[in-house]
């Protein structure tokens, strides 16, 4: 049984902050390919094109017949054949997280693997394997109890691989939108201690303001991503106390490129969503990174919500899709930087959001509640990329299969 997490105590300002080391990060290209799939919450192994046998650790050729290997989703059951508790390590990250339990797992898919063990599983147990990302963004096989156990998510080893909102303090950048409000409430419901809710223009009232600001745990803060000084001021005030940042800003307007496009709209979108994202990262990334291994409420993640059409462009939303493309590109670069400090960078991808700027788009559309659910799930699972709804899933699947075709289709 897992001991339930207790609310972290107030930080003693005289105690040295634990440096945010990451677990050993050197990986082969094949292991990096496994990480890319792990980030989407998939459980994959390499399977041979010729003999159809699954293999692990990541290889470049099949060890049974030397055929070519491809990543495939695999059954995630396993049995633990041997276990140990590591009580001594010379690695800077693990030596501060001892004892650490690992085991030898016989995967239902075939291969044997060295795996991390959840506290509720041990030798002889049937387990459910999850392919997680470790703090450095590398693939990690984690053996979970087959069935839900009490306080399962509070397992200290598991929490190293997740960014669970429980007891964490979270900045949601834009509370003026329905999305921002839904995300804030979902995070509190998932156990967050505080949600600092951004408001770019405190002099202007917004829909739902009285209700959301009265919710227990919500702390309104002044924050405008188009204003560097407001970010610096807030980072100075909250930097050491924010564990997760969720960027909910968006500026969607319809229009084409040669026809019906509006340069002012494009510039406003780029300033808020792209330059704004970099302003936000520059304000908060250093503080998050410095606290990435600071106990139960260590800083854990930066979440950005963007349109799936950043991958493809979209007819009728050319400027907004270009903005989303730039946003996804910045997030990919930031992910690489933050992997070195143990902070997860998460992309929540949406279809057309069910708001005033997508009135003439036929359903299905992405609701604020779906986005909020995706944010919480990605944090709880430690995922890197998550689709909030069916449209995003559909476009992503087609894009992964044939990006050039999907780009044509979406711009017809």
């Amino acid at each position: 049984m897992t001991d339930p997490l207790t609310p972290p105590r107030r930080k003693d300002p005289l105690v040295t902050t634990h440096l945010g080391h990451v677990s050993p990060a050197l990986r082969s290209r094949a292991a990096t390919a496994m990480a890319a799939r792990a980030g989407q919450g998939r459980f994959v192994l390499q399977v041979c094109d010729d003999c159809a046998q699954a293999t692990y650790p990541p290889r470049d050729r099949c060890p049974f017949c030397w055929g070519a290997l491809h990543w495939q989703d695999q059954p995630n059951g396993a049995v633990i054949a041997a276990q140990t508790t590591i009580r001594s390590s010379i690695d800077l990250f693990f030596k501060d997280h001892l004892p650490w339990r690992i085991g030898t797992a016989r995967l239902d898919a075939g291969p044997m693997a060295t795996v991390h063990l959840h506290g509720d599983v041990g030798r002889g147990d049937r387990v459910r394997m999850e392919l997680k990302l470790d703090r450095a963004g590398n693939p990690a096989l984690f053996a979970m109890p087959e069935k839900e156990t009490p306080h399962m998510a509070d397992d200290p080893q598991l929490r190293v691989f997740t960014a669970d909102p429980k007891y964490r303090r979270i900045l949601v950048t834009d509370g003026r939108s329905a999305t921002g409000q839904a995300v804030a409430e979902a995070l509190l419901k998932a156990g967050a201690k505080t949600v600092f809710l951004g408001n770019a223009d405190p002099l202007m009232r917004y829909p739902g303001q009285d209700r959301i600001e009265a919710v227990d745990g919500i702390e309104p803060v002044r924050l405008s991503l188009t204003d560097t000084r407001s970010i610096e001021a807030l980072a100075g005030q909250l930097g050491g106390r924010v564990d997760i940042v969720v960027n909910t800003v968006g500026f969607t307007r319809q229009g084409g490129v040669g026809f019906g496009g509006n340069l002012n709209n494009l510039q406003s979108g780029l300033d808020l969503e792209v330059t704004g994202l970099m302003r936000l990262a520059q304000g908060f990334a250093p503080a998050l990174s410095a606290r990435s291994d600071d106990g139960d409420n260590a800083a854990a993640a930066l979440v950005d919500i963007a349109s799936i059409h950043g991958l493809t462009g979209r007819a009728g939303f050319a400027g907004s899709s270009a903005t989303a493309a730039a946003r996804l590109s910045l997030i990919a670069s930031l992910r690489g930087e933050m992997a070195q400090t143990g902070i997860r960078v998460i992309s929540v991808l949406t279809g057309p959001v069910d708001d005033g700027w997508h009135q003439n788009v036929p359903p299905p559309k992405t609701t604020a509640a779906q986005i909020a659910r995706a944010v919480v799930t990605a944090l709880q699972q430690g995922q890197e990329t998550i689709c909030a709804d069916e449209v995003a899933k559909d476009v992503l699947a087609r894009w992964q299969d044939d990006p050039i075709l999907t780009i044509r289709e979406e711009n017809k």
Partner: protein
Amino acid sequence: MARQKPYDGVALCAPVTTPYVRFSDQTAHWWAGAALAALARQTGLGPADFDGFCFASFSAGPDTVVGMVQHLGLSPRWMDHIPTGGASGVMALRRAARAVQMGDAEVVACVAADTNQIDSFRQTLQGFSRFSQDATYPYGFGGPNATFALIADNFMREYGVTREDFAKLCVAQRTNALSNPLALMKKPLTHEQYMQARPIADPIHLFDCVMPCAGAEAFIVTTPEKAQELGLSTARLAATIERHNAFADDPVQTRGGWARDIDDLWAAAGCTPQDMDMVQLYDDYPVIVAMQLADLGFCDKPALSRFITENDFTIAGSLPLNTNGGQLSAGQAGAAGGFQNVTEGLRQILRCPLGDQIPDATRALISGFGLVNYDRGVCTGAAVLEQDVLR
């Protein structure tokens, strides 16, 4: 399968050990040179006299045997680089023996040398192999301790071997080490101390682990005629085996490649385990010593516990084991740890041990085990050495 041809015309001689140190500010090159200097003192040979050179090391990077040859002023007509750590001694022996037998070389210096600088152990582990970098060390970074903990956890339950049994092996090796002035461990180890040691990675405890250190080991493979000319005592190579990545389908390692080839070894050697005056086994962990005792034919695995109880593994005992103290008590100088079994076996049958002599010893079984590439040791080898001429 083609049978192994005898090693006629091959003489093993001049085992040397450079005194180990826990940490060294010197390089593997320095230690390799120290081993060659020791060979030179014993034989009178200089750089120009060795026409064969076989080298094993983990810490010589970026150099291989090529860099080492130029660094140390050798000009061999045959050379080899053995990257198999704990199996490198047996493998060097096999390769050098055939080179000498076929006339590709006449005097081969086999050298294993490694340094141990501050933090070099961690750095070696970090980039040790692709599988361990991808799929072992990110899992708690317990190093080899964690890998062998999983192997030991399974082995002990499977075959009823206990920590008491391992204690007996470790205590006997420490007793042996006390007569070896070069052993790093100088104090006796009691059964109680072994049992009460702090856990490292369950069921591995402190005295199951070797002490990484710096050092070098070397020996010469040449012709009987050349050895006579140099006035060196010699041993014969009766038989050898070598196997890599055996039993890949075993879920957790319970046996090594020896189990596959052991009948060939004893058939070619023309003797049995009971004819051995000593065993010099690779001892990174006592569970691997126990595994070798079974795989090399001394007993079945279910009978291991009884076999260990019934035998005395000290120099004066019924089956002397790792008579210099082994890596567990003498220290593990990287790849040189895989040469210790050869040099110590040779010394005992050539009557020049570092510590106490096994009375009347003429035959030694040596065994190597190397390279945890992922979840198990991949390389194995064994050889039977016999006393030939004492000079």
